[in-house]
């Protein structure tokens, strides 16, 4: 039997996931006959598109937390910022089809704006908006990360101030005067890139893009873990001082990783908004970001596919239990987190390994007992 290395096995996993998401799911949606077990409905596909965006955020957080040891409790902020940046473009693309038939977005009419605020104007351009999806989360992460890492804020402290960051942003976006729609945020989009936004074909295309994007992120992470950069990343997690005293500027490394993770999450947010049709400050609530952390923990930290599995599993469970047990789903979710942390420290992905360990331990005990019995 040929023994495959860890990297080879993860590569095989990524390829399998890519095939399933990029080829199999769209094919089953397009060609599966209605009502058959293998058919994936448009609704299901859209739901999965949403899950895939969540999965990317989980992957980005894993890059930070799993591989670098930086627990960020504000990853939802970057996701939302990307979503808002693209949402602004979508808002302007509504044109005069809004409820007030005005060239201004509905909420601006409602709040009594006379003209478009200056910082909104460039978002009429698609390319500017796409750049903003990259740069807004990137710059926020860059400035904040620079300050935090320079001051050597890490561990629990880093977690708490990132939480404060997203909390402050959440309060800010809830303000009507902040020109981003207050607590209603952006909604009622009509078109994306000139296509009707809720047409099945558009949603299918968005799913496809999300699936390809997730796969690309997974390949990126896979490649990264192989490089010296990736090794240093994990070394920072385990012994930052040693890395620093070996001539590496850990501040620079952490900053790069933080910014990359923020941009990764921001793009996911931009893909998420046209698929769910709404973005509001709820996404910036500290609890949302905590949820992302939980996806990673449930799936398996510092593994390549763990965050994807965790994000999809928890969100599927959430959809399922909010529908079937609306009163108890928070309790189910909460209990899941407690149990995972206590009994499955390596998450779902680590479960087989953990069970094997159990089995070995018990077999060993059993044999010991048998030997003792034989001796007697």
């Amino acid at each position, binding site marked *: 039997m040929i023994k495959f290395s860890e990297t080879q096995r993860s590569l095989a996993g990524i390829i399998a996931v890519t095939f399933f998401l990029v080829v199999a799911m769209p094919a089953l949606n397009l060609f599966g006959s209605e009502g058959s077990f293998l058919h994936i409905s448009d609704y299901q596909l859209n739901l999965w598109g949403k899950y895939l965006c969540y999965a990317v955020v989980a992957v980005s957080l894993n890059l930070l937390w799993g591989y670098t040891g930086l627990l960020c409790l504000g990853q939802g902020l970057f996701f939302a910022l990307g979503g808002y940046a693209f949402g602004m473009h979508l808002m302007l693309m509504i044109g005069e089809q809004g409820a007030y038939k005005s060239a201004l977005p509905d909420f601006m009419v409602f709040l009594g704006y006379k003209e478009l605020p200056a910082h909104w104007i460039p978002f009429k351009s698609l390319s500017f908006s796409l750049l903003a999806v990259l740069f807004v989360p990137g710059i926020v992460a860059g400035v904040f990360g620079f300050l935090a890492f320079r001051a050597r804020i890490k561990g*629990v402290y880093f977690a708490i101030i990132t939480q404060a960051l997203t909390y402050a942003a959440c309060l800010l976006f809830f303000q009507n005067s902040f020109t981003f729609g207050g607590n209603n945020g952006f909604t009622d989009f009509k078109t994306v890139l000139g296509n009707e936004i809720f047409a099945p074909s558009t949603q299918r295309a968005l799913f496809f893009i999300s699936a390809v994007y997730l796969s690309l992120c997974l390949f990126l992470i896979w490649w990264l873990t192989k490089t010296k950069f990736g090794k240093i990343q994990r070394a920072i997690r385990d012994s930052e001082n040693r890395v620093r005293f070996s001539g590496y500027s850990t501040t620079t490394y952490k900053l790069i990783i933080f910014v990359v993770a923020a941009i990764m999450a921001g793009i996911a947010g931009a893909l998420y908004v046209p698929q769910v049709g709404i973005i509001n400050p709820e996404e910036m609530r500290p609890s949302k970001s905590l949820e992302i952390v939980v996806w990673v923990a449930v799936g398996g930290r510092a593994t390549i596919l763990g965050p994807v599995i965790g994000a999809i599993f928890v969100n599927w469970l959430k959809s399922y239990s909010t529908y079937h047990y609306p009163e108890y789903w928070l309790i189910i979710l909460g209990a899941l987190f407690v149990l995972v942390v206590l009994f499955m420290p390596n998450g779902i992905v680590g479960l087989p390994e953990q069970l094997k360990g159990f089995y070995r331990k018990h077999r060993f005990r059993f044999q010991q007992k048998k030997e003792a019995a034989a001796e007697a």
Partner: protein
Amino acid sequence: MLFRFHNLIISALFLLVSQLSADDTQAREIFVEAILAEGSEQTALVESLSTTASTLVPDFLEAWKRGDIFLLEADGSAAPTPLLEVEPEQEGGTPTYFRVIDGEEMAAGSFDPAALEMARPSRKTRRVFTMTIDLLALSTPNVQERADAALKLGLKRDDDILPKLILLRETETEPSVIEALNEGIAVSMLSHGTKEGQMDAIQLLRDENSIAGLDALKNLRHDLNDGLATHPFSEEELAKLTASIASIESYISWTDFVGTCFRGLSLGAVLLIVALGLAITFGLMGVINMAHGEMIAVGAYSAYISQTVFYSLFSESTFALETYFLFAIPFSFLTAALCGFILERTVIQFLYKRPLESLLATWGVSLILQQGFRLIFGAANRQVRSPSWLLGNVEIFDITFGFNRIFVIGFAILIVFGTWFLMAKTPMGLSIRAVMQDPQMAAAMGIRINRVRMMTFAFGSGLAGLAGVFLSQIGSVGSNLGQSYIVDSFMVVVAGGVGNIVGTVISALGIGVTDQALQPLLGPVMGRICVLVAIILFLQWKPGGLFPSKSRSLD
């Protein structure tokens, strides 16, 4: 809410309708006459209501203004009968009508409601409504109301009222009312008095540090500059006026400053009680307890439960209201401590070596608890009533000190002192500190570390419970009560320096005062955001907080 409030006024009016006194009968007669009269006659009649000394007048005038007075046309040439309409209790019901003249209810069917015509006061009459009510208040037996009315009328700077005020000053015996009258008269004098009167007024307002008179003084200076004033001022007199304004302004900024400090301290005290529990569980034990907020909610719900129990034991008596709170304080501490104890035994004791994961597990617990509260107590917020000794306030030098704020500051001091005593002076505190610094060594020295951790965690949670009792007095009790404080209190602990009680105290008070100082400038939300940003920047300067822990370990 608005609707209910509206009804409340009407039912009060209804109660008054059934009582008949000589004053009231006279007032009713004048009122009916006024409704039926027109033009300046109507205005004069309304003005004369101020001499009736009847408590009905404000309610009647309010109802008239609102459009609840209707006219029932009589047959022939007889005058129409004015009726008071009272909205039905339930929406969609039919309103009931009362005769204004004697308060008798009109039997349904004895008239056609559709034929009623709304009685509208003339525009000129409307204008004298408030003044009438205020003048009436000048004759109430309530001292505070009388003083308020005197000042309010003075501020109107109406030359018709001025003589009335001067007249009243001669008969008034209550010193606080005389003071208010003086102030009011002085303000009126500024616009209508002689030159001497004006100069006296300027001096008086300055001596009295009259905040109410500031606008009038400023107006006068404005008028003088524009040449609109009745008497031109000399340089010297103008300087006196300016000095008076400056003196009052500096007095205001002083009272503002003290008031802000006081409000900041009380907010800081609440934050402190919340954060102190956290400083113990997070700072000393290294456990990030995201369910700390829910421990606060446990405390608040315990206050609600003790109120409910007291009400059912002693019925809704004053005794129950006044005493339940004294019971609620220890009860909340114990329930929250018990919850903390259970949490520590079931979850946290396995996670002392994995602080970041204790964060996740306790967040799960917090979700469970939040939903648990909703299932037990319902999704709607619960109201906890404050005992009267927490509700009042005392005004010193124009600064309002609320009893509840004073109480919370006092209580915070007590708790801080108690915690300090426990940590620094008792054998228990010694073992706690030993376990926090080096659990292995402590265990080797014979300290039962499991027991110490358990007790410490329960104590920290109990403090959160105490915070909950106070939050229940400030707002209503809901399942996510703790959530709104958790981020702030984490920041308090981090900014103060983890594991340091003195640091926690200073940073809680500092954040409380900063927050209150920024609020009037930036609004509550922006103020809060600025505080959060300020803390992040502060950590740039002092990454370990105010009092960083001095550890020699590398990582």
